[in-house]
């Protein structure tokens, strides 16, 4: 296999993807962020500070847990779960929010803003802002505020202002646009804590680096436990930060297959899903050149997923690049399959996964029985499902 290009160029291009597609007003702060991030990432003192907070505050390393009953039930490979759901605040999002809030402090910015879909990134940012005494504003689509009401309450309890976004489809995409408008306006005092490996450079690179702790730990843990690398990694993909965080440490190991699972929603028809690899075309949205769900005229299409965190029209650019190089593949599962994944993990392992993470579990329900028993799989359990209990109850009562 040819060597996989793992690093973007200086302005964030992963091959033809990524880049900086933003209004000029945002270029000065993006350049500053790129400079500050690169310097911090090379700075041993910053890495020590980050490492200590990940250990003592976030609760890392998270366990790598052998899901024995799930493994037995499916009759296929040994399935390990990387327990990001056990991070403080209940999802991997805090790995990135912590890193970016530390950077905001280095830049002397006293105010942070964030977008959120499922609310986990908003909660993580509000949490870090509370811990470091920063003002925090979170933009959230009105529809998402309804379906993830628990997280809205949590953010407000943490002292953040949650601003409902009522444009368009009232979900994650509109929340990102609104956060960018705030950032353009308050750029001198404010850092935008983008929650996924998406947007303009340096975000896809920076978020990947902050999330890559997931894969570094998992790699060391599986080597200790099984004395060998896994055969396959699987993670859900919205913007793609939990997936790239798990994959990155393994990209150079050609024997480890990488699978991202998108939201197939109600089926691959316009407006009914969020499977960008199945229904998207190359385009530019919210800072990045990538696969985008759009119509023939370049207008962005509506999306649908039972999980707010995957309900987005574009995908992180590095994933498209990994696909092009034949290094990773991307599939989808439907809403119904995802809910079955949730139920399976709840009943077999006593774990309520987030509806996002349930997509990775659902893929295993479908594919694991066809895999070899001696294979080893790591699934990223990116978040816990408490936030989804209310919505799932309603979802089931409608059926």
């Amino acid at each position, binding site marked *: 296999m040819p060597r996989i290009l793992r690093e973007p160029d200086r302005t964030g291009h992963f091959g033809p993807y990524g880049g*900086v597609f*933003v*209004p000029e*007003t945002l*270029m000065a*702060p993006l350049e500053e962020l790129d400079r500050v991030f690169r310097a911090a990432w090379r700075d041993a003192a910053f890495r020590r500070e980050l490492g200590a907070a990940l250990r003592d505050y976030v609760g890392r390393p998270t366990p790598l847990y052998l899901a024995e009953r799930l493994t037995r039930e499916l009759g296929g490979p040994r399935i390990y779960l990387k327990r990001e759901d056990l991070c403080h605040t209940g999802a991997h999002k805090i790995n990135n929010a912590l890193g970016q809030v530390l950077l905001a402090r280095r830049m002397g910015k006293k105010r942070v803003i964030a977008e959120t879909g499922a609310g986990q990134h908003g909660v993580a940012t509000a949490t870090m802002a509370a811990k470091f005494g920063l003002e925090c504003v979170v933009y959230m689509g009105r529809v998402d505020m309804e379906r993830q009401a628990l997280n809205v309450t949590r953010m407000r309890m943490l002292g953040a202002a949650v601003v409902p976004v009522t444009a368009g489809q009232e979900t994650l995409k509109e929340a990102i646009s609104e956060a960018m408008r705030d950032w353009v*306006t308050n750029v001198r005092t404010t850092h935008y804590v983008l929650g996924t490996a998406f947007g303009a450079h340096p975000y896809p690179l920076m978020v990947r680096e902050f999330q890559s702790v997931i894969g570094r730990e998992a790699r060391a843990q599986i080597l200790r436990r099984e004395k060998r690398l896994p055969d396959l990694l699987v993670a859900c993909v919205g913007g793609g930060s939990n997936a790239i965080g798990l994959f990155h440490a393994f990209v150079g190991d050609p024997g480890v297959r990488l699978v991202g699972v998108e939201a197939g929603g109600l089926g691959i028809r316009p407006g009914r899903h969020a499977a960008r690899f199945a229904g998207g075309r190359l385009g530019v949205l919210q800072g990045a050149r990538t696969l985008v769900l759009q119509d023939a005229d370049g207008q962005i299409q509506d999306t649908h997923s039972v999980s707010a965190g995957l309900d987005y029209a574009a995908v992180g650019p590095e994933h498209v690049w990994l696909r092009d190089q034949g290094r990773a593949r991307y599939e989808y599962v439907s809403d119904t399959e995802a809910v079955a994944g949730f139920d399976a993990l709840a009943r077999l392992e006593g774990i309520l996964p987030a509806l996002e993470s349930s997509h990775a579990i659902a893929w295993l329900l479908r594919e694991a029985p066809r895999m070899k028993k001696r294979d080893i799989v790591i699934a990223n359990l990116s978040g816990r499902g408490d936030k989804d209990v209310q919505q799932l109850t309603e979802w089931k009562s409608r059926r």
Partner: protein
Amino acid sequence: MSERIDAVFRQLAKDGRKGFIAYITAGDPTVERTVEDVLRLAAAGTDLVELGVPFSDPLADGRVNVESAGRALKGGATLARVLDGVRAVRRRSGVPIVLYSYLNPLLARGFEATVRRIAAAGVDGVLILDMAVEEAPSFAPAMRAAGVAPILLVTPTSTAARMKRIAAEAAGFVYCVSRTGVTGARKDLSTDAGDVLARMRRATRLPLALGFGISTPGQAAAAAAAADAVVVGSALVDRLHGAGGDAKARAAVFAWVARMARAAHGAGA
């Protein structure tokens, strides 16, 4: 390239006047209405018209332009229909026209073919909101080759080095944004405006247009004093929407445009 734009700025300089640029969203509420609007803007003294190509996710725009784009899309506006409108204008007017667009609608049917269609329709320049100058080498050459001027933005946060790069890619004029933030009217003109103009003057000999937030003849005159032209956008979009199809109300809007244009023109005297 951009002969109509260059000719307008040459004439303004010769007359010792400042220019007046009007922005409207193409297709709000219909392309037919937009054609009429452009012709009436030109008749009211507008030197150059910017036509917004409606996009579903206009992240650099404020509420007025976001809602306007939404109405245009609902009315069925597409880039192809906007270009039909430009052709209709061209049958009756030589007023320079600049498209103001996000990148994705220009990419959807192939960028090079699209800019050729844009040029053939009679458009003089294209300003791409979300094309940072870093990405301009992938797009600006095709625009120049098709005979469409790449219009670029500079803002108060642009560094001297960036202004130099922008000057190297730009043609026609440079759009100077008077403040950080999205489009939309403001009570006071930002104090950033003078600074951004002065710094950009050192980077380019192209004419400088100043925009974002201008909504009164007084502001237009003040802005025009230091720039070569002023741009009025959201304030006009808002008024046109408010007037709807009412003939008297629309006449009042274009009378206001004429006052704005006179204020800008007079600032050079």
